[in-house]
């Protein structure tokens, strides 16, 4: 059995687990939807400012809400991996001819499916609140794919590495606020033109999450901008090329 097949088997294991852990499921869905509704309501007036790209603030905010679901949410994969380390199941899996990469990838893929469902719920809520997805269902699926991919190569990789290093679910959980920092340092709530600080604008421009958020927003508001979409996926691929070898190296340095 090759690594992708093993990863799919292990992803299925994760998917079976989720309904058996209703607290995880509930608390990974409800806060995101509440944040979407609350932030959308609080900043609704921003949409009336001259030059703002959307008439309905919920439309502008929807891609941000997807990232709020996928980036911090993928941290659960790291927590689950740490739990597997703690209770010995990770080692048990490795007594079969299974690669470490398959075990980690399987967990991340399982969580990606869960997060994709949550992201879809965000978009359903957005539509219910009067928003419109300009690119329709294909664009919505592309947004979800970009959001979950960004989650894997950022906080997913970070949490998996922490799980390897600490074997402690609580330690992995503790870094979750970092994921929000990644999102808040983007044009998540207002356009960069509306931000006064040039330093902050530069930081936002350099943030890879911004490179993913922009094409997602284009898909929501205006249509397909393939140049921006390509840049977004290049940012994701670039991060992946950095973090995946680092993860393997980290594992080998700990477990030889």
């Amino acid at each position, binding site marked *: 059995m090759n690594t992708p097949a093993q990863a799919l088997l292990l992803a299925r294991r994760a998917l079976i*687990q989720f309904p058996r852990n209703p607290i995880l499921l509930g608390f990974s869905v409800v806060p995101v939807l509440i944040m979407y509704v609350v932030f959308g309501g609080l900043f609704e007036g921003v949409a009336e400012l001259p030059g703002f790209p959307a008439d309905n603030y919920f439309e502008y905010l929807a891609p941000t809400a997807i990232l709020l679901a996928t980036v911090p949410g993928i941290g659960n994969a790291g927590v689950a991996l740490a739990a597997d380390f703690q209770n010995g199941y990770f080692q048990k899996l490795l007594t079969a001819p299974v690669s470490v990469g398959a075990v980690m990838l399987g967990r991340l893929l399982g969580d990606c499916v869960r997060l994709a469902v949550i992201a879809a719920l965000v978009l359903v809520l957005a539509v219910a609140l009067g928003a419109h997805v300009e690119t329709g269902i294909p664009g919505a699926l592309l947004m979800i794919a970009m959001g979950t991919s960004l989650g894997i190569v950022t906080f997913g990789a970070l949490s998996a590495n922490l799980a390897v290093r600490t074997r402690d679910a609580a330690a992995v959980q503790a870094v979750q606020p970092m994921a929000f920092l990644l999102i808040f340092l983007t044009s998540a709530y207002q356009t960069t033109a509306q931000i006064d600080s040039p330093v902050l604008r530069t930081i936002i421009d350099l943030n890879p999450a911004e490179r993913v958020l922009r094409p997602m927003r284009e898909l929501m508001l205006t249509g397909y901008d393939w140049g921006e979409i390509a840049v977004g996926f290049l940012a994701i691929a670039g991060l992946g090329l950095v973090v995946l070898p680092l993860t393997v190296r980290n594992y080998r340095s700990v477990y030889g």
Partner: protein
Amino acid sequence: MVLPQSGLPIGTLATWKGRSGRSGLHLSRAADVLVGMTKSSHRKPPRQLRPPVTPVVELTGSSALDELVGLAAGHTPNARPVIDAIVVEGLTKTYPDGTEAVRGISLRVAAGECFGILGPNGAGKSTTVGMLGTLIKPTGGRAGVAGFDVVAEPVEVRRRIGFAMQQAGVDEFATASELVILQGRLQGLAKRDATTRARLLLRAMEIEQVADTRLAALSGGTKRRVDLAASLVHLPPVLFLDEPTEGLDPRSRTGIWDMLDRLRRDLGVTVVVSTHYMDEGDRLCDRIAIIDRGTVVVEGAPRALKAEVGSDATLEDVYLHYTGRALEPTPVAA
């Protein structure tokens, strides 16, 4: 092919003679002959040998094992051992912080034998078994399991071993049945085969009634049995058990011991047990090696070792005799 760290070709191992003076064959070839399982037949069992899809009902634990033996046709589980299933020479593990957990251990385990690695906590037992099970990378020496080198060919080793660890590694959200089936699938079994074997193994372990119960709800002893079933689902020729009865009550311990006896008798599995319970080694093992501070201090059949020390000697006395220190008593859970 050359064994790492030694520079010796793998065939060199085969020139070693067993305790009975049997000459070895080329290990990688001979191991396949021994278990009647070529690499290709392991991955794809002949069609006519596949088990029925419908669940087998009204089986006792023994008949479930018979059924498993039937599934293992193509293996020759009751064949007499012709080579050493495990060959270890100068195996060493030094951790990055300088701790020498294992210092040049050498031993051989014949196919079909139950071999005990005994010693107090911290003696290096788990590290040794971990290296043989490919979970820990040795820093020196060499080891071959079922004819394959643990460093150069870890995947081939893993296809041929079952490993029940000191801490029963289970997924608390999975049911007993799901856990065993997943392990079987990861070992390359088709879903149908893995499902049938899981059912039979759980029945053989006398825990079929909890097949659909989540592991979080099971007792420690039952989890151990599920873990053991998962370790056996691919019917490996070699089984490693690291402290298999640690923390279990006497009744559960006896249950595990009886199960291991039946597995050896009916499936012909080579068993390596690491334990700090001397009575466990005495009860289960054909031969034992007592390990102290990372080295083997004595090796032999329990009865012979006890006889050398005194007429009424126990293995604790043997340990005292060879190490000069008494073994700290370890209470068994009530």
